[in-house]
Every structure is written in structure tokens, then in C-alpha cells.
């Protein structure tokens, strides 16, 4: 019996270790730009955004066209942004296609990540104008202290929620990428540093940047631009939004009524206090 229990414990421990290991930075495809189901202009390139651990080792990228299925196409990989790009020379004829983004291997990771199949429709129109996007409109910040799958420890991160101006493009909003820069703060060191590249969030949604406390304590500023499928970019990155952060530890105070508390809450608290004081005096021996 004891032996069986020991074996079971060993199996559980081994399995737990493997789960933690597998969850640490897998080289997954994070998003496809444009997403599946999009309509794209004839001169568009298509992108697959992988995790930063992903490495491209000439895996086949297959394209199903109206005429052929499973054609291997030529792609380029930008490891600095994790972008696998398919830019068809001369564009694609109008029609409906499916591109099969492959599973990639990763640095420091044994198992391959996830790929994706993306269906898209090519129109005869071309994308000729740069995107319209006035950048960021506001920033809010908070501190996150979350368990990290790789370090198996709690990691502190400042979380910056960024509000975005409306964005659009003649090639379709779904083909836009958002590039966010940190323009002030320890990380930027007087310049500007890209801190986030992702598909443009849906209209009305914001973007989130998480930075280590050491990189984002004090006066921190951000700006952003939009990039379309033809690599044209918007203006608007000259407009910056800033926040002044405070390094932890925080003490959020003992207030039981905020500044917005209504008069009813205040009165209730006063009555409660009076009753408690009266009871305390009655209980006190003379």
C-alpha cells in the first residue's frame, strides 16, 4: 500500500513538473493578422504573430487557393517581432483562400507550439492610403503581482491600460497592427522603445502593456501608431500619454467611505458609531 502511494505521489510530482514546464513560454501562434474570415485588399501581406520564443526553421506554409490546395509559399520570418509574413509577389487574384500557419519550435522549449488555419477573401481593390489613427488618448496604471509560469514565483508588473483613438484603413480595420512605444521612463532612456506589437484591438477596446517595476517607476509615457497590411503607418505617434507611477509596496489605506460616498452612507456610519459608543459606555463599570 505504501509503495503504491509513493508511486502515485511520484507520478503526480512528475506530471506537475511537466505541466509547469510546458506552460512556460510555449512558441504558440498568438494571433493572425488579418484574423480568419477577413476580406483583404489585393496587395496585402499576411502575418502570423508568434510568441517571442518561436524559431522558424523553414517549416512549410501552405496556401489553399481557388485553383490549388496545399501550395507551399515563400515566407519571411522576423524573429525580433515574432512575425511570419506571406507577401505574395504581385498580389493574389480575387477569391477565397486559406493559409496554414505552421507550428513552430521554440528556444528553450521542447514541444512545438500551436499554428492556425486562416481563411480570407481577396478583393480586387488595393490598399493605397495609410491608416488613420491619432494614437493614444489616455493611460491608467495599476500593479499586478501574479504567478509566473516560468519563474514559478510572483512577479511584479505595472499594468498600463491604454485608450486608443479611432482607427481605420482603406484596406480594412481588421488588417491593422498596433505598435506601442514607451517614450519616457527608465526603459526608454531618452528615446522611444517598442513595447507592444499586436493586432489592433476591436473598436472601443484598449491595449494593455505590462512592464517590470524597475522599467516603469516614475514618469512614464507612451505613444502608438497603426500599421496596415502594406506596411504603411499612421501618424499619431507624436501624441504621447503619460502617467506617474509609484513603486510598491503600497498601502491602500483604511478608508471605509470613499469621496464619492453618498450622504446616506455617511449618515449610516455616524449612527452606527453613536450606537456603538453608547453601548460601550453602558458596559463600562462606574
Amino acid at each position, binding site marked *: 500500500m505504501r509503495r503504491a502511494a509513493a508511486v502515485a505521489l511520484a507520478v503526480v510530482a512528475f506530471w506537475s513538473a511537466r505541466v509547469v514546464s510546458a506552460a512556460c513560454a510555449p512558441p504558440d501562434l498568438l494571433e493572425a493578422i488579418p484574423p480568419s474570415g477577413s476580406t483583404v485588399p489585393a496587395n496585402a501581406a499576411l502575418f502570423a504573430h508568434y510568441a517571442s520564443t518561436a524559431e522558424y526553421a523553414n517549416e512549410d506554409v501552405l496556401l489553399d487557393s481557388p485553383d490549388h490546395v496545399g501550395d507551399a509559399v515563400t515566407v519571411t520570418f522576423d524573429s525580433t517581432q515574432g512575425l511570419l509574413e506571406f507577401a505574395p509577389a504581385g498580389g493574389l487574384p480575387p477569391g477565397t483562400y486559406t493559409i496554414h500557419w505552421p507550428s513552430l519550435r521554440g528556444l528553450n522549449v521542447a514541444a512545438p507550439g500551436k499554428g492556425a488555419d486562416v481563411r480570407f477573401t481577396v478583393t480586387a481593390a488595393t490598399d493605397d492610403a495609410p491608416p488613420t489613427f491619432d494614437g493614444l488618448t489616455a493611460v*491608467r496604471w495599476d500593479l499586478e503581482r501574479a504567478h509566473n509560469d516560468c*519563474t*514559478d514565483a510572483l512577479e511584479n508588473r505595472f499594468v498600463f491600460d491604454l485608450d486608443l483613438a479611432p482607427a481605420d484603413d482603406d484596406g480594412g480595420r481588421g488588417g491593422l497592427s498596433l505598435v506601442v512605444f514607451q517614450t519616457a521612463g527608465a526603459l526608454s532612456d531618452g528615446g522611444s522603445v517598442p513595447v507592444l506589437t499586436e493586432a489592433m484591438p476591436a473598436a472601443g477596446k484598449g491595449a494593455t502593456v505590462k512592464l517590470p517595476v524597475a522599467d516603469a517607476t516614475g514618469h512614464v509615457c507612451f505613444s502608438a501608431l497603426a500599421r496596415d497590411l502594406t506596411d504603411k503607418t499612421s501618424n499619431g505617434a507624436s501624441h504621447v500619454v503619460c502617467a506617474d507611477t509609484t513603486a510598491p509596496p503600497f498601502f491602500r489605506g483604511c478608508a471605509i467611505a470613499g469621496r464619492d460616498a453618498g450622504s446616506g452612507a455617511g449618515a449610516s456610519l455616524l449612527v452606527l458609531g453613536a450606537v456603538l459608543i453608547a453601548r460601550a459606555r453602558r458596559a463600562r463599570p462606574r
Partner: protein
Amino acid sequence: MKVDAHFSFAKRRRSRVFGGVPVRVLGPSALLCWVTLAACGRSPINLAPPQTTPLAVDAAVAPDAPADLAIDLPVDVPVDLPIEMPVEAPDEPMPPPPPPPDASPPVEAGPVCHPVPETCNGVDDNCDGRVDEDLPAIPCPGGGARYCAGGHYSECPRRCETCVPGSERECFTTLCTFWGRETCASDGRSFGPCRETPPPDDCKGASNGGTRTKDLEQCCLDQGLCCIDEFDLDGDGDRTEMLGRCDTVTCDP
């Protein structure tokens, strides 16, 4: 250490001990004072940091100036135009000049914009009312491009900021084995804690004396490992960098 608490006001004892810590208990009047302040939205204990600080600044407004200065300026002030500093009035009051005969109302001369080609500097160089517009991206050798953002061309994108997510490097603890390993966080922005591990067999002698010496780091390098430069073996003053075989750890290609 004393801790003021607002609880247990009905107790007669004004001082109690919790876990070896003397706790001073305040009376009912203090509670009433506190409740009153709280009801008014002011807590006597309110050390909370500012939760959010939304603040928008246009880079056209003094791009290199401190932001607290920049935000005090109205946005529509054309500070990107050539600035003519007003001449301060002399200390002694001057008599006003007599009005010329048949003088028309004075016309205030505003700053004049002299158009020059637009560059990435947070200024409206070409006087079209827009800042840093239509500037081309600069391709980066390793992929990606540099963009004009916030009055500066950005750095080239990098695979990660600090380390490749999930990668490991050797570190040196302060006790016991004097050896450890730290793992890069999943976002590649920091390393986790240095967790103690047994040193490689060839490095056990480096800490036999029970002290931490640079021999530990040198042995780490000799083993072909990626090691934190805690003892500054390269003499550049940076004790947080990595030395050794760090191809799969560092973010640079």
C-alpha cells in the same frame, strides 16, 4: 513597535498584546472621529497611492521639456513655432510714449513659422499644423523598422527585453552551496529569483572555503555556462549583465 487600532473600543483595557506586539486601543471618541472623517470621504489613515494618472501630452508641446511643465501649457499654444522671448520690462517705470498722430490700433505680431522639411523632433517643422507627419520608417538590419514616436526614432524591435522567456542562467547565492539558477520570466522582461542548486562538480572546490569569491563565477564561465557577472569579471562595472555562453538567453541576435 506600537500599532494604533480602532477596534475593541468597548474593552476597558487600553493596551493589549497581540503576538508579542503591544497594541494600543483607542477609545470610543477616537472611533467617532474616525467614522466622521470617513463619512466625509476623508480617512485619517489614507496612504493609498494614486490609482490612476491619466495624462495626455502632445509631443508638439515642448517635447524635451519635463512633462509637468509641458502639461501646464495650453495645447493650442504653437510652441513648436520659433519662440521669441519677451523682453522683460526694466525695473524703473518708463513713461508711455506719446501716441503718434493718426495712429491706427497696434497689430500684435505673432511668432512666425519658417517652414523647413519635417524631421522627427516633435516639432511642426513644415508649418502645416501637424507634428512629425509622414516620416518614413527606417528598416532595421535584424527585421522590423524604426518609427518616429514621441519626437524620436524608436529603437529597433528586439525579440525580448531582458532574456529569452524560459531561459536559464547561473547565479550565486549567499549561503550553503553559493550556487543557483534563475529562470527568465514568460514575458522576457526579468529573471526570477535565484534558486539554490548544487554547483557543478568541477566548481565545488571554488567554494570549499565557505566563502563567495570570484572563483565561483570564473568556474561558471570555464564550464561553458551562462553566468551572471556578479563579481564583475570583465571590469565594466555592470554586475547585472550575463557573461559566458548566453546565446539562448540573451535577447540580442
